[in-house]
């Protein structure tokens, strides 16, 4: 147990923050001491009442990935004269770092990202909640009907925790999706049906099917295109 000081007055008992490896940060004008070797998001998450950093693709059990960008904050390494945007889930805490989690620029950026996510996944509850919090009403774009935000948590859990890598993110850009190798579990036989992917999914896009295997989200709009493309490129066995 170590003591962490907020503004030099209030102190909060926290488990981490060892004195030897202490790093001093300023988060939203509050001076705090945290243990080194962690990211801004990890540090702030353990500090009730300090900062407000939403995150979608972050989960403490797997390595940070930096895909959703909703945790973006402004940081300054030079005492506050120059600020830059960084992903809090990946940026390591450093001595003297100034972090701002709620500036107008940050709010605007998060709003923009949420608008894009809401347009992709208008029916996802977690995204709807964030939209409400950040004041996004109706996206200005054509609405999609997907459930998957491509946070990659399922893939990382399968790889890092289960050690199976039965699913992966395939294709790129807007065509990216979660899939088993060659779109078929039976080909690799790696899926053990543990349900970890469905458990960790923040949007409920993965459900366990009657055969004990997860039903993966499909990229609904362009998937037909991909299928057609794959059919066209398939070379008949000689």
């Amino acid at each position, binding site marked *: 147990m170590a003591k962490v000081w907020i503004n030099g007055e209030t102190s909060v008992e926290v488990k981490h923050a060892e004195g030897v490896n202490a790093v001093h940060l300023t988060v939203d004008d509050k001076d705090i001491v945290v243990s080194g070797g962690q990211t801004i998001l990890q540090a702030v998450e353990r500090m009730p009442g300090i900062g407000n950093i939403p995150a979608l693709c972050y989960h403490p059990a797997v390595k940070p*990935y*930096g*895909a*959703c*960008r*909703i945790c*973006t904050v402004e940081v300054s390494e030079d005492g506050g004269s120059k600020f830059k*945007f*960084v*992903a809090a889930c*990946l*940026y*390591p805490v450093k001595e003297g770092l100034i972090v701002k989690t709620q500036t107008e*620029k940050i709010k*605007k*950026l998060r709003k*923009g*990202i949420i608008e*894009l*996510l809401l*347009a*992709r996944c208008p029916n996802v509850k977690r995204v709807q909640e964030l939209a409400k919090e950040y004041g996004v009403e109706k996206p*200005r*774009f*054509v609405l999609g009907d997907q459930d998957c*935000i*491509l946070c*990659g948590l399922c893939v990382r859990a399968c790889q890092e925790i289960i050690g199976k890598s039965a699913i*992966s*993110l395939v*294709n*790129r*850009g*807007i*065509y*990216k999706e979660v899939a088993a190798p060659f779109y078929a579990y039976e080909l690799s036989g790696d899926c053990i049906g543990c349900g970890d992917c469905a458990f960790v999914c923040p949007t409920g896009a993965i459900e366990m099917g009657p055969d004990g295997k997860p039903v993966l989200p499909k990229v609904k709009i362009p998937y037909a295109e991909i299928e057609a493309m794959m059919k066209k490129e398939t070379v008949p066995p000689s």
Partner: protein
Amino acid sequence: MVEQVRNLLERRVESPQELESRRQSILAERDSSQTCISVCGGTACRASGAEAVVDAFIDTIERRELQVQVSLKETGCHGFCERGPLVVIEPKKVFYQRVQPEDVEEIIEETILGGRIVERLLYVDPTTDKTITYEPDVPFYQKQTRTIFGANGQIDPTNIEDYIAAGGYSALAKALFQMSPDKIIEEVKKSGLRGRGGGGFATGRKWQSCREAKGDVKYVICNADEGDPGAYQDRSLLEGNPHSVLEGMIIGAYAIGSRRGYIYVRNEYPLAVEHARIAIEQAMDYGLLGKNILGSGFDFTVTINKGGGAFVCGESSALMASLEGKVGEPKAKYVHMSEKGLWDNPSLLNNVKTWANVPLIINKGADWYAKIGTAGSKGTMIFSLVGNIVNTGLVEVPMGITLRDMIFDIGGGIPDGKKFKAVQTGGPSGGCIPEKYLDTPVDFDELTKLGSMMGSGGMIVMDEDTCMVDVARYFIEFLKGESCGKCTPCREGINRMSEILSNITQGKGKPEDLDTLQDLAGVLSAGALCALGQTAANPVLSTIRYFKDEYLAHINDKKCPAGVCRELIQFSIDADKCEGCLRCLRECPTGAISGQKRQAHTINQDMCIKCGACYDVCKFNAVLKR
């Protein structure tokens, strides 16, 4: 077998003195007054038939038994791609352009044997109508400073002796035996060299941080994953002078203490891959790579890694992920790759052109190098000048030259007497610069100020018939296909930009679209994970900044002023000008044109698919495009 080993041992150069004596003996063996036919074997010249020309030369020389008098050499890209295939006859440097296999007999007969010039193959400067006989007199070359690219047209890239004869690997010898690693880094720092891949980061600083980084294993990487539409300078350099890149890499490796290097080159560049492979093999044979380089005790090897052609793999962290055998996705670089890169080891990654600059700096000194260029950007830069320009090709110019000099003096201006409209610099993540900024000196900082960037040196010139909204749409469409899809702003944001721009070009634009585009641009630049996303909005922002009226014409008046966007133009026939020749009527693929002979024709708008065939074939300019 014994013979082979002996040959191999004889080829090995064991010391700097031996390198110099080897160079002297190569030069002595070669008679510089002997006639040598050098054919450009760059990709562009090959595409216009250079290989058939080489074959024809070999054939003719053998048939007429001229092997003793004449030698033949296939070199790298000369740069004047517009006029390929290029043939230069040494030693006088007689310059023939657009040479075809059927011209070969005449060249041999007249020039080689008769000492006469084949007039019809000479280059005529279109601005002055002057016929130019010798290569150095071609205005396209005269206004360039070809410090890196100059050797390309003179050496056979598949023969290391050509490179050694031209003084190659002397910088390596100097670095290994006369300089300490710190001195080398100091020299590179002092030269002011900045990364030529696009970022423009100070090269010396990068080297230093990699040298200081903790770790026994360090890597040196050459980024040859050039993928910008219209850019091919890295390709041409690696194809035409691979040893200069290798030499730079070996010096860099020695400076940071690395023993292993990689060339990451895209598989779509087969010639670059092949020439790099041959260069590595030959350098190994000569003891310039491998164990105990030049007898210095320093070991270094280079491996080629062929990329799958993803644009994003030109981004350093994605490139390293791909090198590791993983999906080519960028990662956050809050800890620099020079400290924690490939397999989490310190890794020094530089662009092809950056590496090729290094031997020059070591040989001629940082002070000499720093004299070229502007205050913030030193040295020369190779640009690929493409698009609506008379002299398409690769040009090497000192930093600080104006866009106008580059486009009009070297590039020869816009073809067909058309007006200049904009130049897109820096590839898909760069911006479009309009005419009023043509006198801007070209360097890293000035281009950034204009909302564009240096990038890897792409320069696409556009004439008055270009629709800037369509250009923005094109680049966004390109990036949409090349975004890796990892982060939300890039994946979703570029896709939405593409939707909006397509709508605008189809006449479905809304007045609020410009604001939405700018909002999306803000999300991309602040929120995207890597430079691809962060700069993706540049083509949109710069065209809105400089050509807003064109956007407004598309959105409000549903007109495309340049007459490019199909949904917004209409073809009609001017009855006064139409002679009733039936040409357009026959050409029209949908039968939309009707009319009798010698009577004015008309176009049925419902049937017209706006292919423009009638517009192209009409000899009387009677078809109107509005």
